[in-house]
Every structure is written in structure tokens, then in C-alpha cells.
């Protein structure tokens, strides 16, 4: 079985490092990106199986990226989990077509559960 690719985009490198460490396994490859402008090209290039996306990021925000993903035919059904400390995070995620939402600070076990639900790894 080939490894699943998870793209994590957050402007905070601390979170990126932590998530990379947490999610890395025999079944998954983790790609991290702190600059939200690179996300769309990165999706095209890497064709990830799941995206973990922060909302509040400079220049291009998570909801903008999410809308762009949903508008393109080849990515419109790509699983996206929004991870955000924003108060209206859940609402923004729902309204823009995210598959799931997890409020920061989240429980790592909960994150594994949600990831598992989307791509059936790390369960």
C-alpha cells in the first residue's frame, strides 16, 4: 500500500514541526508549508490525499485557499480539515466546504481520529 500524502499549511512553524512529528508514520508522508501562497501550486505538484489548513494566515487566508480548492474540478473533492484558533472557525469551515474542523488547541488523539475518518490511516 502506497503512503498517503498529508499537506499541512499553517503560518506558525512551531505547529508545522509538531504536526509533522505527530502525523509521520509508515503509512503517511507529511508535507508542510508555512507560506499560504505556495499551497495551490503545491497541491498541483504533490497531489496530496488530505490537507490540514489553518485559517488566519497573512496574505492568503485559509478560507480563500479552501474556496479555490473547491472551485477546481480536480481538487473539488479533496479532503480538507480546517485547524484554527479563530472563534468563527467552525462556521467559516462549514460555509466554505471543509470536510471537518478542529479548534486549536486540539487533542492529538482527536486529530488522529479526524485524519483517520478522511483517509483511513493512523487509526
Amino acid at each position, binding site marked *: 500500500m502506497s503512503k498517503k500524502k498529508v499537506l499541512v499549511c499553517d503560518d506558525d512553524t512551531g505547529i508545522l514541526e509538531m504536526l509533522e*512529528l505527530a502525523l509521520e508514520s509508515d503509512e503517511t508522508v507529511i508535507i508542510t508549508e508555512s507560506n499560504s501562497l505556495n499551497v495551490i501550486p503545491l497541491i498541483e505538484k504533490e497531489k496530496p490525499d488530505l490537507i490540514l489548513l489553518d485559517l488566519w494566515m497573512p496574505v492568503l487566508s485559509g478560507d480563500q485557499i479552501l474556496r479555490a480548492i473547491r472551485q477546481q474540478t480536480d481538487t473539488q473533492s479533496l479532503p480538507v480539515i480546517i485547524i484554527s*484558533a479563530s472563534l468563527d472557525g467552525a462556521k467559516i469551515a462549514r460555509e466554505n466546504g471543509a470536510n471537518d474542523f478542529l479548534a486549536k488547541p486540539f487533542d492529538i488523539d482527536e486529530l488522529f481520529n479526524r485524519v483517520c475518518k478522511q483517509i483511513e490511516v493512523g487509526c
Partner: protein
Amino acid sequence: MDSLKDGHFTFSRDTVEQDFTLLTAALDASITGIIITDNRLTDNPIIYCNSAFEKMTGYDRKEIIGHNCRLLQREDRTQKERQQLREGIDQGKPVMVEIRNYTKTGTLFWNELYVSPIKDASGKVTHFIGIQHDVTRRKQAEAELENERQLMEQRIEERTQSLKLGQEYVESIVQTVRESLIVLDNNYKVLSVNDHFLRTFKVNKEETENKLLFDLGNGQWNIPRLKELLEKVLPTNNPVVDFQVEHDFPYIGHKVMLLNAHRIEYSGEYKDRILIAIEDITDRSEIEKRKDDFLTVASHELKTPLTTIKGYVQMMNRFMPEETDEKFKDILAKTAQFIDRLSNLITELLDVSRIQTGKMAIHREMFDFDQMIAETVEGIQAASKSHQIIIKGEPIGSYNGDESHLIQVVNNLVSNAVKYSPESKIVEVHKAFVSDYIKLSVIDNGMGISAEDQQKIFERFYRAGDIQTKFPGMGVGLYICDQIIKQHGGTLWVESEKGKGSNFSFTLPTKEAPGKK
């Protein structure tokens, strides 16, 4: 009596003595003082006085005969009535004056004096008849009346003055107050405005007074909802409270104004007038917005590293070797616990700010109430081994509410129950249907809450009595819970007695939430 015919004396030689005696007796019987002076003699001396005159003046006839009348005025010579008398006598005309006279013992009396000249056949004045009335009592009454009148006038003057002062006082308050005030008549026409109104809206009296409120400026007050409040709510004796108007006002630009209106109910001149106070809260709302923005950003920024810390701590747990000693495990568990606390504090801080500015919105969605309770309790149970948390009562099923906020409430109530009952073992969570409401109760056997504190624990930043030293916290938890339950259309309350545990309960309406917009 032969000499009296048709009411007139008719003298004859035979009866003259008898007649004279009779007339003299009549004069003496009069209570009017009568004197006769002889103008033909030097200094016009008194040649006759009757007994009433003697009585009035205290002089005997023999003491007075031969004196001029001025004797009665003693040293009081400057009275203007003397001049009138003098003129009358000189011209041989009758005079009437009221003059101050003095009795023999020096007592003042007011004499209403009528002086009438007697002329001989050639028209020359031979005598004067002086008719005197003691009018002291009347004069006194008049003086008293005058005095009373002056007193009354003075009082009216004083009252008017004090009323004027009062008015000026009120006026100066009205003009000093840093709030715009408008008085309307019952047709919403502006009767007056204070200076602060004119300064705030940069308008003058002419373009404001006698205009309809709804026509002022560019129609900034012509708001259907405000119109309705003024026309329909005010007459029912309810004031309009804190009506917010956000508008691009002429001259002053975009402002947020808070409007309070009140109708004068007491009868009289001012009945049905409407008082409106307008407060410019533009700066305040701007500051509040900035504070909100700041707190939102701050909480977001604080949660970001917290996410990383939490993740690493949980991973340490995961990767912990089998042989790790208990002390280390315990330290890690404590660390995780306090990271959660820090996370909750950040959330609470933001919630308080949102409630204060009325921005905490409830997002209703159907969720499984029983599952929510079970999961929340499970979470707390996992962290508190000292207590057993028991769920009792009937199943509720699904409920349409804001699940995450309700979790917050249950979390708060149950963890409080655990926290404040360190000596006891059991906390009970009870679910029930009561009429159209869900009722959830959290019951502990802990330290309880005094009646005095029960009033205040739902207030912001309030911490009961000695709690602060033993159980640190911000004192916002119950305040937030109360607000969340209120927003759902329910109520949150406590029944407790010091030392006998507490029962916190809340209700949630199962029918469509009553009209909270």
C-alpha cells in the same frame, strides 16, 4: 318740646334756655369730638369742646379753651395734612384730613378731622367747627393690612426669586450636562434643545426648534423602528431605552448615538411632552471594537503556541517508555491538565468580552443532548479520580441549541461541583423534562454557598468570600454560563446552604425559543 318743628329747632325767647340746654346735652352725648374755634380772635382759639373731645384727648375743657388746635400735634409738626388744614382755613373752605394727634399723656391717636367754616352775613368766616373721630383702630387695621400686603409682596418676590433661581439652576444643569437633550411636544415637534445638542450636531436653534424630530438634518431620526417606539411604546408608559442609531449625520459624519426617551406622565402644563437624551457613543464603540479586536487577536495568538505545547505533551505521553517512573508520568499528566486550564482561561476571557459587547451569538443546531452530557462528564471524570460523577434521570434525546456553548456550561457546572466539594465523593448530574423545558441539575455535597454569595456568583469577576485564596480563578465561569443559558431562553440558578452542598440547575425551552432576537 315746642321749639322743635319738622325736625328743626325754632328758637323763641321763651324756650331759648331750654333749647340751648338740650342742644348742649346733645353735643355732649355725641361720641364724636366737637370743637368750635373763634376765627375773629387772635390765633383762632378753641372756644368750645364737647365731652367726647375731652375723652378723646384727655384734656379738660378748661385746659383746652383758649388754645389753638395745634396743641394736639405737639412736636409732630411736619405732617403734610397741616398744610392742607392751613389752606382750607385761610380760604374759608371745609377740609377733611387724617392727622396724627397726641393725648395729654402723649399717646398717639389718629384723628379724622373735619373742619367746617361758619360765615356771617357778609361771608366772613367767624368760626370753625372741628369734628373729630378717633380712627386709630382703623388706621392700625389699615397699617396692619398694608404691612401684610407688603409682607405678601415680599414673599411673592422671594418665591419668584427662588423659582427663578431654581429654574436657572435646572437650566444650568441641563446646559452643562454632556448629553444632548431634546424636548418634544406630543406631535414630535422639537420644543427645545440644550447647548450640548447644538454643539454635538453642529446645528443652530433656528434649524432645530419648532421642527418635527423626524425632519431634522437629513432625516437621521426618521427610522421606522424609532418612530414605532415613540408612537406606540412611549404612550404605554414605557421608556425607550438605549436605542442605537448609526448614521451619517450632516456636518459631523458617521456616528453611533444612543437614544433614551421618556414621556412626561404627570398631568399639567408639561403632560405628554417627550424628553429625549442622546449620547454619542461613537468613541466608546470604537474603543470597544478595538478591545474586541485586540482580544480576538490576542487569544488567537496565545492559542497558537499552546497548540504546539499541547501536541508535544501528548506525544510525550504516547512515546513514553514502559519503564518510565510514576513520578514522571504524574508530572506530565499535571502539565497536560494545566495546559487545558490555560486554554479555557483564554476562551473565557474572549467570551466575557463578547458578552459585554453583546456579540456572543448562539448558533443552534440539532445535537444529541444525552450524548453531549455523557461525553462532557466523561471528560471531567477522566481528569478527576477523587470523585464519582453519576448521571441520573430521563433521556432527553436531541435538542436544537448551541452545542459547544452548552458543553461549556455543563463543563463549568460539573467541574465546579468537583472543585468545591473536596471532602465528598459523589457529584450527581440529573436530567429531566419539566413542562416545556429540559432541566439539568448538578448536585454536590460540598461546601455550599451562603445566601449572600448566591446573589452575586453569576456576576462578572465575582468570587465568593474566601474562595479566592483556596481556589484561584477569574470568576467569569458562572457569568458566562448564565449568559449562555439566557441566550437559549432558559434560566440558571442555584439552591444551596453553607456546608450542605449546592444544586445548580438550568432550564432550556424545548419549544421555539421565546422572542430573543
